[in-house]
């Protein structure tokens, strides 16, 4: 497809072998790795330097916006835009506005975190080239896959194949494009 060289994907049956392969490809200065695993691998995420701080920041910002916005909205609607006199009680009686502000101050960050997580992952997505790799369905069960960007592979294919081969992959394939 538009002249982009195909990605290379190696299949492993043990987490240890995958870790070895990641270390040696990284030591060899190869970029553009993508790892697929059947469960969260925090050590691999650390090794590859994935940062998730953005989710925290988004949650805190969303909490402030949600709580502050709800408080102001209630105050503005009942006190300014359409002053509502209920038994002569003060228009700006803020304590009554607190429960809803707190609750929406939880709703907005929760929704922002979970929906933002999907957006950061590029999901939902109907299809992805790796699904065409034979045997990839076991990435959700017990197999580990290491994908190397085709543009990296193109530079020195023989060396990369040799590097991966040292760690006993079950198979090395090109990702069909």
């Amino acid at each position, binding site marked *: 497809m538009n002249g982009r060289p195909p990605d290379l994907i190696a299949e492993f049956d043990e987490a240890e072998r995958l870790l070895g392969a990641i270390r040696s490809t990284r030591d060899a200065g190869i970029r553009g790795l993508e790892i697929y695993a059947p469960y969260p691998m925090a050590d691999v995420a650390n090794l590859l330097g994935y940062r998730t701080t953005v989710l925290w920041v988004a949650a805190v910002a969303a909490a402030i916006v949600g709580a502050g916005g709800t408080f102001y909205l209630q105050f503005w609607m009942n006190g300014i835009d359409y002053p509502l006199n209920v038994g002569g009680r003060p228009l700006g009686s803020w304590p009554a506005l607190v429960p809803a502000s707190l609750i929406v101050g939880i709703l907005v960050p929760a929704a922002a975190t979970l929906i933002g997580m999907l957006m950061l992952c590029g999901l939902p997505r109907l299809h992805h080239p790796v699904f065409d790799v034979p045997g990839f*369905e076991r990435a959700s069960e017990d197999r580990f896959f290491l994908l190397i960007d085709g543009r990296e592979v193109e530079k020195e294919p023989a060396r990369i194949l040799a590097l991966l081969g040292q760690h006993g992959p079950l198979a090395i394939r090109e990702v069909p494009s």
Partner: protein
Amino acid sequence: MARTRSTASRPADQVARIPLRSEFGITWKLALAAAGALTLLLAGALGHLFVAGVGVWGNSVPFVWGFDLTNYVWWIGIANGTSLFAAILVLRRHSLRTSINRFAEALALFAVICAGLFPIIHLGRPFLFYWLFPYPPTFQVWPQFRSPLTWDFWAISTHVIVTSLLWYVGLIPDLATLRDRAQAGIRKRLYAVFALGWRGSVRHWAYHQRAHRLVAVLVLPLVVVMQSAVAFEFASTLVPDWHNTRQPLHFVVTGLASGLATVHLATVGLTAALRLDRYITPKDIDLTAKLMLVSVLVVGYVYAGEVLVGLLAGDTSAIPSAMRMSGGYAPMFWVAVAATCVVPQILWWRRWRRNVAVALLAGLSVLAGVWLDRLSIVAGGIQREYLPAMWDRTYVPTGNEWALLVGTLGLLMALFLLFARYLPVVSMFEARHEEAEGEMP
């Protein structure tokens, strides 16, 4: 190439096979038929209510609140208790989370759906419930935000949205596993659509885990604020027995006990029905029983505090407290205390904790006790009107109200049975994770 699957070595295999079975046995069908019949009863009762109006209930002065609020507060307690439990498991990274978290979250979601029905249907015109939302209407009046009714609206909708998002996001990787394992067909397609294209990239896993834990952190204040908002609705009225700062604590603590009782019942039931003993061990059941025991001890402490503080306070507080313990609804109060605090004490003995019948009985006793507690607060609180001529009245629920209570129980059961049939009740990726970490030196 066809692969031969060596099932023995596959982690989480037993769990994955459950939703993919083509046949599920006669017991499940019978249970679903019973739960479905109750759900139909609920639909019928709701239809009758919508057509005839709330006059079909036993509410009348002084009982402006009755079964509607009793059931609402009871269901909300269960929802909050199960949510809180699930969130704490995630945050503590406790080994129980693998086995119990998924269905505890599901129970919380189904309970909050049942709870959310009642505030809507107890409105005189339930089809106008959306007036609580601040949309710009043509008649240009905004909702009255200083009214506790609007707190309820935000609390319930937030709980429904957050619980369902948390549960669904936790499910995505397992839906991907089911998608990859299912035979081609409509079911595979459905799993594929709901798996959203999850492919298990380590980068995605990192975001997924972070987001799941973050939202679990948010659930902690949510359940406390929400249960307190419900309690404030009582406390902000002028009914002497309700107008009290002890309400939030009482509702949070008893709600947690009922939530833990529900989790315990579901754990025992699922283990027996689905043969998940590899993932839900007797040790887990022992732990949920102990948790329930601890929570009812706290309930006992709160009851004792209420009696003491209620009776020592001035007349305005002491008289309604004394009425609750000796008035027309006193039997319910004392049965509630006995069923919630005394009966579960049998769980101090390991022998009884491991006994399925006793475990079920203790759980049901806590649930019934908390329900009676809600009824004794709602009906017992407003029985003493300001005019002595009104004092001898008793709240008499009608058939429609009983149908709503039994119907929501059926709805919860039906949703839970469908969940147990079509989705993994135990987190498969957590099970794989645990087994992988167990193997590593």
